[in-house]
């Protein structure tokens, strides 16, 4: 019994990370219809930038904020320099484009930071807390707190602000949005910056848990992508559910079946869900097509 609680907590921790990454996918997708497979690289950049800034002697909190800003700038740059140039490309090309971007960023990161894993201190102390016989580290709590925070902030931003309305307007009908003086290009840049920021946050909260390295973005990107697909593209609640589900399936799969094939289990589940619901759990039927 204790075991299953522990599995669940582990699953929720890692699932929360997937959820944040998936929200990054959704943010970009819902505005631009682009699936940014370089999203995982934003996560990596978050972790690695934090490490470098701390090493430079910058105080923890300032380094945190600075990291988010730097990665957001990179996100903006990626949109401006790469994505915008391929306007109107089909999903197939966009997938290739963003894979190329990911490989490019990862390669540069490998050259800048080297291949070794680095260590980032946790936000607060790392004395674990005991819940019903299962242990949870403060950093895991932070991960979940940040996930909820991100969800809340995103909700507020999208539902309650003019910018959020503009985002949604671009996603529903870019032409009509232009006729309201909303520039889909600008919104596209902003969505990339925003989702890079989300990636950075994911990277920051996970850095103390997993020892970041230049190639950590691959798997996190894929898992985030899976989570957003699982939930149904373009659906923020879907992304959160998808992320948590994926994390829990993985953890339970590793716990009760076999840790060796846990990825086969989680991706097998993704395949099966797509078989039953070709548009994800909360997805709408008409999405899945690309193009700015």
């Amino acid at each position, binding site marked *: 019994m204790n075991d299953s609680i522990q599995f669940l907590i582990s699953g929720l921790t890692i699932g929360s990370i997937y959820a944040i990454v998936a929200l990054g996918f959704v943010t970009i997708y819902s505005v631009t219809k682009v699936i940014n497979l370089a999203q995982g690289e934003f996560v990596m950049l978050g972790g690695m930038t934090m490490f470098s800034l701390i090493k430079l002697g910058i105080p923890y909190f300032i380094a945190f904020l600075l990291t988010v800003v730097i990665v957001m700038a990179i996100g903006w740059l990626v949109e401006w320099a790469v994505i915008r140039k391929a306007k109107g490309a089909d999903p197939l090309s966009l997938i290739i484009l963003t894979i190329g971007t990911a490989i490019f960023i990862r390669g540069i990161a490998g050259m800048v930071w080297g291949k070794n894993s680095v260590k980032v201190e946790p936000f607060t102390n790392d004395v674990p807390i005991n819940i019903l016989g299962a242990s949870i580290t403060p950093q895991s709590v932070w991960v979940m707190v940040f996930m909820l925070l991100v969800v809340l902030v995103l909700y507020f931003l999208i539902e309650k602000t*003019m910018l959020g*309305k*503009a985002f*949604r*307007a671009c996603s*529903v*009908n870019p*032409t*009509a*949005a*232009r*006729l*309201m*003086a*909303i*520039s889909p290009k600008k919104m596209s840049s902003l969505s990339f910056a925003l989702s890079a920021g989300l990636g950075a946050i994911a990277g920051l909260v996970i850095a103390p848990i997993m020892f970041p390295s230049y190639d950590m973005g691959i798997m996190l990107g894929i898992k985030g992508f899976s989570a957003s697909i699982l939930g149904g593209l373009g659906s923020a609640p879907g992304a959160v559910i998808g992320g948590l589900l994926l994390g829990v399936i993985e953890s339970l799969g590793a716990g009760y079946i076999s840790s060796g094939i846990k990825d086969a289990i989680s991706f097998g589940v993704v395949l099966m869900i797509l078989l039953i619901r070709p548009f994800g759990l909360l997805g709408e039927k008409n999405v899945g097509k690309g193009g700015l």
Partner: protein
Amino acid sequence: MTSSILEIKNVSFSYGPIKALDHISFEVKKGEIVALLGANGAGKTTMLNNISGLLKPASGQIYFKNEEITKLEAEKIVEKRLILVPEHRQVFSTLSVIDNLYLGAFHHFKKTGKKEVDQDIEKIFDLFPILKERKEQLGGTLSGGQQQMLAIARAIMAKPELLLLDEPSLGLAPLIVKEVLEYVKKLRDDFGVTVLLIEQNVSASLKIADRGYVMSHGSIIKQGSSINLLDDPEIKEAFLGHTVS
């Protein structure tokens, strides 16, 4: 002297091999309601899209308030208070009525401030009480006529000086068409908005318009005051084809 608010000079446009506009020139004076008439495929919508900046003319110039806007982006043209209510209404279907209205005010929201925008919305609700009733409903769930009103209301939120209306009667029952067009007239009379309207419903639109232009195959083939146009037998031919004798 009434100055022209919109001037179109020799504008041409093609969709790939299809020539849609062929050296079109016309003007709209301040305070007028002008109707641009023509059968399907005559190039009316293309004309409006060229004016609003969604499409860029291949040649020719467009002046708004004596300023050339030919090459401006659609977003920038909106800021100059030239607003298009596009074909098929294009309300944001997954956003609520009130959010649709807020978005109309997007370009001046910061300058104007939320308070004033809210007041504007109240004014709109006075004009279109049905929208107030449905303000929390999603745009896509409204009926066609209500969507048309929302689209016009949303455009008014942008504080237009010139309003372009692309077939506001499209797909609406005759009674509703009349109602919508009444609102358009009211806009000019009460708000001082100049209106350029494209319509296939000739008689209804000419009834509210001061002047009209008739388009066919990408050219303007006829122009004149509404009264004269209404009486013109060639209009029927333009819409129904050569009379078989």
